[in-house]
């Protein structure tokens, strides 16, 4: 008889308490619960699946140690988001900057690097996707972070503030300026609808 372990349905707080009490399976449950979302977040920043997986794994390993002292002052998932985001940003900083010069740049090759497009989303053409990525890349790091968390991950201002470690007012300020810069860069595409 095949036994597929059911997903652990305990809330995050219970998993953290269990892990801190010595139940390491609780940590596995936390990883299983958030690995998809965090991998997607990492890919939004590093845009390479292999690097994204490294980032997420390194972040989880760091979390394994830090979770023992986690006091629950923020929600677990915002805390995890913060760890992954910081790792992803550090990774990008260390990586040589890719200059987009032609349409044959790797950014076009997303479908070939193991990532699949969600079936419910109509695929953008390659040129537009490149423009969008380039525009987001051109943002200052603090603006880019907030824009990705809001527009891609759909987080609330409060959650973004927890992840980034700043106030909601600062989140709004960065989001406002980030959006305005993107709007100016992508204006022709916004007007035409694509």
């Amino acid at each position, binding site marked *: 008889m095949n036994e597929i372990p059911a997903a652990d349905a305990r809330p995050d707080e219970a998993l953290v308490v269990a892990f801190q009490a010595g139940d*390491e399976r609780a*940590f*596995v*449950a*936390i*990883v*299983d619960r958030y*690995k*998809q979302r965090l*991998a*997607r977040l990492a*890919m*939004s920043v590093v845009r390479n*699946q292999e690097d*994204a*997986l490294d980032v*997420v*794994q390194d972040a*989880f*390993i760091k979390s*394994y*140690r830090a979770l023992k002292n986690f006091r629950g002052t923020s929600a677990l998932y915002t805390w995890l988001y913060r760890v992954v985001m910081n790792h992803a940003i550090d990774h990008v900083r260390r990586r040589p900057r890719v200059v987009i010069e032609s349409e044959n740049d790797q950014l076009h090759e*997303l479908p070939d690097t*193991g*990532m*699949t*497009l*969600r079936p419910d*989303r*109509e*695929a*953008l053409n390659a040129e*537009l*996707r490149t423009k*969008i*990525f380039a525009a*987001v890349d051109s943002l200052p790091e603090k603006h880019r972070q907030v*824009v*990705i968390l*809001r*527009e*891609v991950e759909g987080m609330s*201002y409060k959650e973004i503030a927890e992840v980034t470690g700043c106030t909601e*007012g600062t989140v*709004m*300020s960065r989001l*406002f300026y980030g*959006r305005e810069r*993107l*709007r100016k860069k*992508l*204006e022709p*595409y*916004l007007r035409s*609808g*694509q």
Partner: protein
Amino acid sequence: MNTRIERIIRTTDGQEPDGALTPAELAQADAHSALGALMKQAYAFKPADAPLAFMGERILARARAAEPEGFTARLQALWHMLVGHPVLAFGGTMAVLALVVTISVQQPEKQTPVTTSTATEPAHMRSFIIYDMPDGNGFFQCVEYESVSRKSNGNESS
């Protein structure tokens, strides 16, 4: 008269968002909304399942195998940093001292009865007017202005 606007929240009370926005603001709100939709499409990639399989177990194994960070390890790391980067250590110490001095100097003034007329340097202010949109996306208008704080002794004519 001290004027300071921190935040104004204006919620639209109907289905149409243009009840509270000017045409220019509406165009900006629409652009922001379209931008968000474009970004969601551009970043709509799903991590492949295979590499994520058994990630929890693999991470657990790696975490157990790695050297645990203990107090001794942290102390060693700090020592290496100080010895290897004396300039960094000195600079960091000076920065901390400077911060302590700055905080000490910038204690808020106590509220005392106004007896003199003074005009302070205009301070640059930034506030956000937040509109809650029916689609859940908040649109906010950034207002930047200078704020002048003036105190009077009551004898001045306005």
